[in-house]
């Protein structure tokens, strides 16, 4: 393809959009709505995931052993637990270690543990288990129940389950809204291109008489759709970056407690969102124009 031909397609595509400004704007707004929902969903989902990951590091699962097991029994249980899928690390904590940790946690008030030593330590032998991903907590718990000698299991299941459920519901809702808006966008784009084709009937006719190929005639209309998609994708992103940054800093400011968790950085979010939104916008535009061309452009 000659550079002059590409220039021609772009020029014709743009002029087609200009002559049909109202429909062009409607199409762009529809794509913007779709991309905005997609971006919003991604921001929320990605932050929830990020927060869950931070919790994974701190939560884990604690397993307590009843009675006084021998060191062979402890070694045996440790290997059994290590073999469970998604278990990253198993750390044995003796009652003595547990007591030390407890004292450290209580700091200045450690004297309430005065008088407790190896002989009368009421604490149990335990394992601290770290998982590779929090989503697999359920299956690990199930597997742990099958191991003999385990007295008690403690974990942060309820909190994580809640966040995971919220995440899932939110993802599904976001996806559905995005799908509906996507279909609406494609329909509006189709109509825009149809009008553009009708506007150019005479021109298309002459092009055919002088021997333009079918693709030469089609390209400007595809370009129109692509331009709608690109503009409709870029605008919400450009507007979205400062808004995201503002919201994050507002959350930090108004709820200082939140500082223990970290939100995702603007750069991390948009380095993913940019190409995905752009590709999705172009996809919407192309689907809209190609279906419209197939229906209305008899070349």
């Amino acid at each position, binding site marked *: 393809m*000659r550079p*002059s*031909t590409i220039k*021609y397609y772009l020029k014709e595509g743009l002029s087609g959009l200009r002559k049909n400004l109202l429909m062009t704007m409607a199409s762009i707004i529809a794509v913007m709505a779709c991309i905005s929902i997609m971006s919003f969903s991604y921001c929320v989902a990605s932050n929830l995931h990020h927060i869950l990951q931070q919790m994974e590091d701190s939560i884990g699962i604690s397993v307590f052993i009843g009675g006084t097991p021998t060191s062979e029994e402890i070694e045996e249980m440790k290997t059994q637990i290590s073999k469970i899928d998604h278990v990253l690390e198993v750390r044995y904590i003796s009652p003595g270690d547990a007591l030390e940790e407890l004292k450290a946690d209580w700091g200045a008030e450690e004297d309430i543990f005065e008088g407790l030593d190896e002989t009368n330590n009421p604490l149990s032998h335990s394992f601290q288990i770290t998982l590779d991903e929090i989503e697999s907590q359920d299956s690990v718990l199930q597997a742990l129940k099958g191991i003999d000698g385990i007295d008690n299991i403690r974990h942060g299941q309820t909190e994580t389950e809640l966040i995971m459920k919220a995440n899932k519901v939110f993802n599904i809702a976001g996806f559905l809204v995005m799908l509906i808006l996507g279909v609406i966008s494609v329909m509006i784009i189709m109509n825009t291109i149809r009008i553009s084709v009708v506007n150019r009937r*005479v*021109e298309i*006719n*002459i*092009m*055919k*008489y*002088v*021997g*333009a*190929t*079918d693709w*030469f*005639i089609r390209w400007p209309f595809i370009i129109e759709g692509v331009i709608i998609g690109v503009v409709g994708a870029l605008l919400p992103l450009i507007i979205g970056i400062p808004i995201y940054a503002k919201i994050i800093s507002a959350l930090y400011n108004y709820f200082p407690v939140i500082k223990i968790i970290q939100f995702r950085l603007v750069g991390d979010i948009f380095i993913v969102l940019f190409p995905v939104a752009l590709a999705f916008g172009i996809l919407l535009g192309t689907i809209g124009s190609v279906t419209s061309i197939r229906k209305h452009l008899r070349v």
Partner: protein
Amino acid sequence: MIWLNNVTKTYPNGSRGVENLNLHIEKGDFVFIVGSSGSGKSTLIKLLLKELEPTTGDIIINRVKTNELSSNQIPYLRRNLGVVFQDFRLLPNKTVYENVAFAMRVIEAPNRIIRRNVPAVLALVGLGKKGRSYPNQLSGGEQQRTALARAIVNNPPILICDEPTGNLDPETAWGIMQLLDDINKRGTTIVMATHARDIVDDMQKRVVTLKQGNIARDIKKGGYCDEA
């Protein structure tokens, strides 16, 4: 250059366009297609342009059986055929220059060649100074000259005209005929459907007379025929 072998075109509604046409047009010919209204002139022109498919029979242009061409080969057939209509069919929002250049752009001619050929062909049709005008600023004759320039700018070996003088007064029509004669003398084969008796009589070219879709008369050099 152009062969029609037993070509019949019946329209989907059953009306007859042309019937059993056999016609041979040689390279460099200037052929008038005449006949009363409804005799099939436009049908024949559309068959040549492959705007219509023959119901039966073969059409051969430049050694290619056009009725067997696939749709993506049609554009390359059309590049051999310049075409001029009664109603000019210019793009109103483009200048004369752009209207002519358009025909070169859409077949992806290089800009360099466009800049060279468009002024030359505008000069040839006598519109050397009108390049910047828009069609609605031109007389009918000038508009038809623009259409003619557009038809020949890619140098097609064949020029096909359907009543090119139909909308013009006799004097202006005569100017267009002079131009067509010049173009023909440079080697372009011309097929022209017309009602214009005076023109046909004056030009003394080959005349094919159609009557109800058949060829009623075909003379090498002559005038309009009334009986047909």
